[in-house]
């Protein structure tokens, strides 16, 4: 039965395979959990299909898709107010794709953990803007689209996020 995909399913399948890595990476950084990110990646694409008729080709597809994912992430975060990030440990951080050696690996994992924990401590909207800028290379306009806000507000969110991260990671955390 699952083999009986019609033309649309074939098209959606290509979109899912093309974009799942982007959506998943975004959600991991928003939620701090692979399992939840996997869950919401799936949900994002189900909603993408449902909302396809309302997609405007003039906007960036990427912003539109990440907006769906971002709204899902933020509503998930609102629901679990016991912030998991507070108890983030090394086991929660994925090993890097390449592993040059055991010692370097441990150091790398510690650094990744520190970076992700610091990003995870940001307020949700600051984190969303920061992740979209830093890790997905969205322009300020695209971030504004993805967050349903103005470019000016994106500027302020990013500025505050970067100040907090500077205090946390560079000035306070001794990671430089």
């Amino acid at each position, binding site marked *: *039965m*699952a083999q009986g995909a019609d033309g649309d*399913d074939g*098209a*959606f*399948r*290509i*979109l*899912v*395979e*093309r*974009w*799942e*890595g982007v959506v*998943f*990476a975004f959600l*991991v950084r928003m939620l701090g959990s*692979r399992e939840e*990110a*996997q869950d919401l*990646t*799936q949900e*994002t694409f*189900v*909603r*993408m*299909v*449902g*909302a*396809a*008729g*309302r*997609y405007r*080709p003039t906007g960036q*597809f*990427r912003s539109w898709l990440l*907006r769906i994912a971002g*709204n*899902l992430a933020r509503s998930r975060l609102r629901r679990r107010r016991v912030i998991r990030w507070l108890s983030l440990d090394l086991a929660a951080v*994925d090993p*890097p*794709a390449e592993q040059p050696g055991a010692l370097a690996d441990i150091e*790398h994992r510690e650094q*990744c953990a520190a*970076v992700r924990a610091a*990003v995870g401590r940001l307020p949700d909207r600051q984190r969303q803007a920061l992740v979209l*800028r*830093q*890790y997905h290379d969205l*322009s*300020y306009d695209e971030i504004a689209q993805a967050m*349903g806000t103005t470019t000016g507000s994106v*500027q*302020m969110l*990013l*500025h505050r996020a*970067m100040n907090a991260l*500077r205090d946390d*990671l*560079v000035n306070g955390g001794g990671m430089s």
Partner: protein
Amino acid sequence: MTGNHHPKGHVLQAFADGALDAATAAQVAGHCAACDACRRELEQIGEVHAVLARDPGPARPRPAWPAVQARLQRERRPLGLTFAFGTALACAAGLALSILVGGGGVHHQVAGPVIENATEGGASLLDIFATAIPEES
């Protein structure tokens, strides 16, 4: 930012991100060339970006398509229902709503968050492909 005034922090950040228009960027660049404090500020912004870049991101997820397809097959509804819902709301909101509320979970739209300015019947799959496939590494 003109003259001796330092650019505000969010302007420096936008400058570092290449997000300013050319004229403003030129002004900021001119100021920073002559201002140690703002240059140091820019260096610190670069430092934070460098630290953030040490996180390469998560390893790839399990392929999502099998689960997505299974859900679509379970939840797929005739398109007409969605359009009928929108039309009913537009034409006779009160009556339509009371019927829908009375009807409980009948309308269970899969479509997610409201996309502002979205237009009904907007894009075909071809439109989506046109912008979705070529970009991004």
